Every structure is written in C-alpha cells, then in structure tokens.
C-alpha cells in the first residue's frame, strides 16, 4: 500500500494514473447529477410554506457543503505540502482553490436568489452569509498569493499558511446558525437526530451532494495534472511528453 502511495504521489506517475479516475468520476457525476436534478425538479413535492422556490435547495445546499469540504481539502493538502514537502499535495491545493471559490460563489448567489422571495432581501449581514463571504475571500486570497509570488515554493508556503489560518472560519460557518440568532435557518441534515426534511426531498438533495463531490474529484484531478505539467516543466518526463504532443 505504502509503495502505491509513493508511486502515485510522484507527479510523473500521478499524471498517467489519474486518467482512469477522472473518467469514472465524470461518468458518476453526470449520471447521479442528472438523476438528482430530475427528482428534485420534477418529482419532489411542493413545500407547504415556500411553494416551488425551495427547489433552489438542490443546488444551494450542495454548493455550500462543497465550499466547506473543498476548503478543508485545500487546507489539509497545503498543510501536508508544507510539513512533508510532498509536491503533489501543493498541486492538489492549488487545483482545489478555484473550484472551491466557484462553489462558494454559487452558494452565495443561489442563497441570495432564494432569500429575496423568502426574506424579502437579496443580502443581509447575517452571521451565516457573512462568514460564507469571508470564505470566498479566503479562496480568492489563496489564488492571489499563488499567482503573485514568483518562486513556487514560497508561493505554496504563503498561500498554505493563509489556508491553514482560514480553517478557523469553517466551524464558524457551520455553527453560525446556532451561536447567533440568524435569519438563515438552522442545520437540517448535518445534525445528530433525524434530519427535519421529508425523505422525498432528502434523497435528491443527497444525490446532488454526491454528484457535486464526484464532479469536484474529476475537476481537481484535471487541474492537478495541469499543475504537474507546469511545475515539472523543466523535468525530462514533461519535456518528452510535450515533444510527442
């Protein structure tokens, strides 16, 4: 097992070994995603209070969950990169940032579009909304550091430290609805007792969550392959590869 990890973590082997993974993740994301959307838009019952507008949940909530999940992956891999100098970890962190930023943006915008009919406002400085906005800025800050600093090692160190410091924001976002009395509703699924959502609505929601994860897995591997090519541009395996292209 350890041998496989060693081989997989060298950029050269990662570049080729990740291709089948990308294929399967893409197929999985597409199938589960389409089925989840079908259930969510056509089959799930109308909400007795919110009517049809609640159907935004099937993209708002998975995007929000993903923005937190991707940030944790980014911070963990940045930490691994700094502590053990595993270059693939830095590549995964750099590859995750734009994807996480796009999910945080999607969560904020779909939430705001859902908030307008339900709360009467596109934006309020609510604890949950504000901490999610800070999460988006942390992603953008990470990406800015990555592109601004010339030397790759110091760019990884600086952006990695920002990512690790920013981890404190993750529990704040999650518990913001309990700590402050927020306009945003409390946890519905991620809590210890039974989720307070009807099963016909829960199933498409969980399907979409799985589809988002598979989609992220496929895209982060594609981006990590680009990072591997760019960061190893002076190495023989990349030069040989490029000559064949």
């Amino acid at each position, binding site marked *: 097992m350890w041998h496989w990890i060693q081989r997989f973590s060298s950029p050269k082997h990662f570049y080729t070994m990740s291709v089948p993974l990308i294929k399967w993740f893409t197929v999985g994301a597409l199938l589960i995603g389409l089925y989840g959307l079908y259930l969510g838009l056509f089959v799930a019952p109308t909400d007795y209070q919110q009517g*049809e*507008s609640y*159907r935004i949940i099937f993209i708002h909530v998975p995007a929000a969950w993903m923005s937190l999940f991707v940030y944790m992956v980014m911070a963990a891999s940045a930490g691994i990169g700094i502590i053990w100098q595993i270059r693939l970890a830095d590549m995964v962190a750099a590859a995750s940032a734009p994807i996480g930023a796009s999910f945080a943006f*999607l969560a904020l915008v*779909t939430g705001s*579009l859902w908030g307008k*009919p339900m709360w009467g406002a596109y934006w309020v400085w609510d604890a949950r909304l504000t901490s999610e906005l800070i999460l988006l800025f942390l992603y953008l800050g990470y990406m800015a550091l990555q592109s601004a600093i010339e030397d790759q090692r110091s760019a990884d160190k600086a952006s990695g430290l920002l990512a690790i410091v920013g981890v404190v924001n993750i529990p704040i976002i999650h518990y913001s609805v309990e700590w402050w009395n927020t306009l945003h509703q409390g946890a519905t699924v991620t809590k210890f007792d039974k989720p307070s959502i009807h099963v016909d609505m829960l199933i498409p929601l969980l399907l979409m969550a799985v589809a988002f994860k598979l989609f992220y897995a496929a895209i982060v591997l594609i981006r990590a392959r680009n990072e591997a090519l*760019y960061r190893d541009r002076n190495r023989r395996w990349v030069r040989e590869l*490029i*000559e064949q292209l």
Partner: protein
Amino acid sequence: MNWSEFFNMGGYAFYVWTSYGLFILVIVANIISPMMQRKKVISHIKRTIRRENIGQAKRRHQS
C-alpha cells in the same frame, strides 16, 4: 405534467431558473477553464523549448 405550469415554478420562475442558470454557468466554467489552462501550459512549455534550442544553436554557431 403541464409544462407552462412547471416553468412558472409557482410564480418563482425568475428566482429558480436564474439560480439553475448560474449553476450551469459555474459547472461549464469549471469544465472549460482547466482545458484552456492546459493549452496555455503546453504552449508555454513548447515556447520555452524552442527558445532554448535557438539559444544552443547560436552558441554552437559562435564557438
């Protein structure tokens, strides 16, 4: 299944379909952006290789 009723989304059509439109936009952007990134990286490396070959040719010519 009445399509016009479906698209009306109980009067919330604007909010629901704008959200789903942005969702598709974000998914497509996440697919296209790495492809463009890959083209940029490959052409950058190719240009570096060409520049190095020209440099070597010049040195060989001068020596």
